[in-house]
């Protein structure tokens, strides 16, 4: 945690950055509550995004954007009034506050708030913020990665590299009196490869991402990025579609956490449960999986995409155990749902930007280690597949059906990996899939790629992870014999 002195300094720096002072913020909060709202918050955000693309051997384009404003929210029970202003003048902010206030239909004299600078965790301070890194320092990362990818295999015909970095200043003030500043870096390096072999064309990609500074992108990581992007492309020349139907699915360690994200994570977001629209709405404290299944959603993994010092409502973040030894323990809460259930917020209230009101969202979702080994899991499968890399997934919250798309994987025959597979969708049902997790290995890890989660039109960065595990049956897209 930051000590109080640094919290005061951080808040002062951000007030200067936004050109506002705490007296103005207090007046805007009072205006927001002037119709009788229970609670109000202000979310100031200044985001600068940069991107660069290298294509056909040259740095062919770059872009940057600045987006700033304040989102003003008023709650009355579970009702929300919301407005934002891009103009940070007192008059414009008070105008937006009056719009948000109108969710409440009463009137009252709300006193100006006393605001206290409040500290938080320190999970992603980087040596040099992205605002201080010149574009010329970034170009060698792209050029080096491109050269490595071109050199990795003679069949490579196209390499494109894209880079993105961003730096966000966030200042949150609420009617509980908290005033919190956070600075959030993010970066990502993406390598896309196309290869032609015997007249056939294949392409694939790999990426590295996190709340990282430029020093993290060292030569060893660039080597790994280029090597993986090329290897994942070349293997597609030998890959086939598996047969259609229900099969045992071994989820490889790492990115397979996409199963948790879709099959259980979304269904455990408390807004769906307080509304009764999630298939998990009545399953708290029930046994839903084997004893060795523990599933966590945590904001506390330093420098990961899903890391958060403080959530977007100003709540402290934490490690939330969704399923503990097979028993469903906690939903992911924002302020509205925590109040509804009479529990503490879990620090899961997140938003895409000041243009959006917060919702309960995931951060880093993963499964803890289990008692089995990867080798015994694969040996146990007579005929099935291994799912290794993924592009996307989706879920129906109430029916529980979820899907994820496998880009690379393997066929398992009589306990051995026999042939690569590609491009198939997997579909299952959340509670059924949890019951069917029959083996979990001890090799849990978070994926290093950059995942983004979409919900109600809002995108937020997330992380996911998994140990090798076996789901005894899921429906695999494929070809009928």
């Amino acid at each position, binding site marked *: 945690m930051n000590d109080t002195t640094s919290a005061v300094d951080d808040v002062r720096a951000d007030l200067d950055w936004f050109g506002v002072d705490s007296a103005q913020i207090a007046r805007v909060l009072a205006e927001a509550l002037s119709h009788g709202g229970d609670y109000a918050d202000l979310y100031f955000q200044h985001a600068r995004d940069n991107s660069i693309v290298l294509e056909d051997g040259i740095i062919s384009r770059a*872009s940057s954007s600045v987006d700033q404003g304040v989102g003003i929210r008023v709650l009355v029970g579970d*009702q*929300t009034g919301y407005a*934002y202003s891009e103009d940070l003048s007192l008059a414009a902010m008070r105008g937006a506050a009056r719009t948000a206030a109108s969710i409440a239909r009463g009137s009252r004299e709300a006193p100006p708030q006393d605001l206290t600078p409040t500290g938080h965790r320190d999970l992603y301070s980087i040596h040099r913020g992205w605002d201080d890194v010149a574009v010329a320092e970034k170009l060698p990362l792209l050029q080096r990665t491109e050269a490595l990818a071109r050199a990795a295999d003679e069949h490579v*015909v196209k390499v494109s590299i894209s880079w993105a970095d961003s730096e966000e200043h966030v200042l949150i003030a609420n009617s509980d009196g908290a005033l919190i500043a956070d600075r959030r870096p993010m970066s990502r390096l993406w390598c896309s490869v196309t290869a032609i072999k015997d007249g056939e064309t294949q*392409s694939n990609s790999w990426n590295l991402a996190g709340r990282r500074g430029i020093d993290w992108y060292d030569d060893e990581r660039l080597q790994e990025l280029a090597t993986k992007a090329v290897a994942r492309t070349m293997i597609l020349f030998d890959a086939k579609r598996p047969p259609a139907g229900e099969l045992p699915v071994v989820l490889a360690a790492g990115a397979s956490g996409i199963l948790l994200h879709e099959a259980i994570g979304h269904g455990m977001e408390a807004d769906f449960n307080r509304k009764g629209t999630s298939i998990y709405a009545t399953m708290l404290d029930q046994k839903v999986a084997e004893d060795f299944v523990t599933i966590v959603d945590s904001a506390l993994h330093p420098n990961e995409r899903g890391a958060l010092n403080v959530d977007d409502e100003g709540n402290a973040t934490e490690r939330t155990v969704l399923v503990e030894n097979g028993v469903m323990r906690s939903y992911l809460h924002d302020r509205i749902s925590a109040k509804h259930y009479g529990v503490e917020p879990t620090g899961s209230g997140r938003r895409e930007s000041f243009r959006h009101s917060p919702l309960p969202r995931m951060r880093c979702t993963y499964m803890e280690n289990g008692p089995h080994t990867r080798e015994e899991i694969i040996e146990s499968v007579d005929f099935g597949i291994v799912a290794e890399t993924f592009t996307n997934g989706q879920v129906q919250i109430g*029916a529980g059906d979820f899907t994820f*798309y496998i880009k690379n994987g393997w066929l398992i025959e009589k306990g051995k990996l026999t042939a690569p597979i590609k491009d198939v*969708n997997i579909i299952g049902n959340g509670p059924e899939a949890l019951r069917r997790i029959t083996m979990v290995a001890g090799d849990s890890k978070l994926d290093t790629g950059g995942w983004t989660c979409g919900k109600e039109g809002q995108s937020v960065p997330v992380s996911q992870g998994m140990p090798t595990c076996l789901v005894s049956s899921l429906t695999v897209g494929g070809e*009928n014999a």
Partner: protein
Amino acid sequence: MSAMRDELLQRAHDAVAMAQAAGADDVVASAGWGRSLEFAWRDDKVEKVQENTSKAIRVALYVDGKFSSHGTNDLAPERLRHFIGQAVELTRALEPDPYRLITPSELYEGRSDVDLDLVDKDLTADAEGAMTRDERLDWIRRLHDAAHADDCVISSTSGMMDSHGISARVSSNGFAGDMERTSVWFGAECTIQDGEKRPEAYRWVGGLHRDGLQTPEEVGAECLRRALTRRGQHKVTSRKATMVVDPEAGAGLIGRIFGALSAGSIQQKRSFLAGKLGERIGSEGLTLIDDPFIVRGMGSRWWDGEGIASKRMPVVENGVLSNYYVDTYYGRKLGWEPTTGGASNIVFAHGDKDKTGITKDVGDGIYVTSWLGGNANSTTGDYSFGIRGHLIENGELGEPISEMNVTGNYLDLLTKLTMVGNDPVPWSAFRCPTLVFEGIDFSGL
């Protein structure tokens, strides 16, 4: 809103001048303004009200043969000047790209001035006759009540969103234009109890204008009907079967081929449709026309993202690929004449039956109402999608099915199109009618 149009045009002109003063050789600047209102109703009360106004400026810069683009919503004149100056400096640090040039001014010529009727005055900010807040709340309450009208409904949420936007585009080589449009969307979602499961359904309708859309009662009732048809959904066996795709699901399937039709994906060797111009890629019934001039069309426009004057363009005619989407940059790289960089409205050649008539004709198969995840590989054409839908038995929609995938390759799929309906979705830029494909691989039990 002519004052706002003038203001935005002036801002765009000013931004071009600032960039030129900072050393840019060529500049394209866009200035935009937008306002949106959003209301939601859940169960017995208002769930959310939101109201926003935003402004932004984007500049595309051509400096010493190098290129970059930049946007900001921090429009205070001195800070904007500083931002643009920094952007020009950043561009100098990049590498020269001989293919990156401002759109040639000849391509701006021949711009149509047909009236596309893109603005519903009742949806603009302070127009007389604009819906009041209370009228909007009443509208979504009626929607909600219709969607909630069954004892098995656990929760339903209805909503209405409308927006009004204006953008102006100015270039250093003579382009100037502005576009104004409105849109409105409303609909409902509901979740019902069905044993342990809680199937959900939604229905949203929309358009640039409000008149001509269904009533809240009709939309809410359709949402509820869809949810009720999901009761008892279960898995069925894997099979090869005839697939009927609902008009609302069509864009999710056929829209995917447009990525592979772009010059960028062809030049980057990521298109399964490369080298197929003039060749048959689908069955006779597949005709796709890019039509930018549909009155009140969601994708209608007088110029594209590069300022190229819009033209009606056949994309696929009777199964034969007739045009790619060629922007100026990748066109130069490939040595091709530019067409347009991206789709406007897509229109199909119609058949003579709607989805009910087609389902009757098909007799047995699987009806897809929507997709659930899945993806496609634009390099190879491989696809695999999850579906929601129904068995078709004896020409009627039968039991709802769950946990099923459909898998194949587009080059094969497009040749298996056997029927096209006459019932396109009116409120989508992708005006897809009911489509029928034979011999598709479904995976289930």
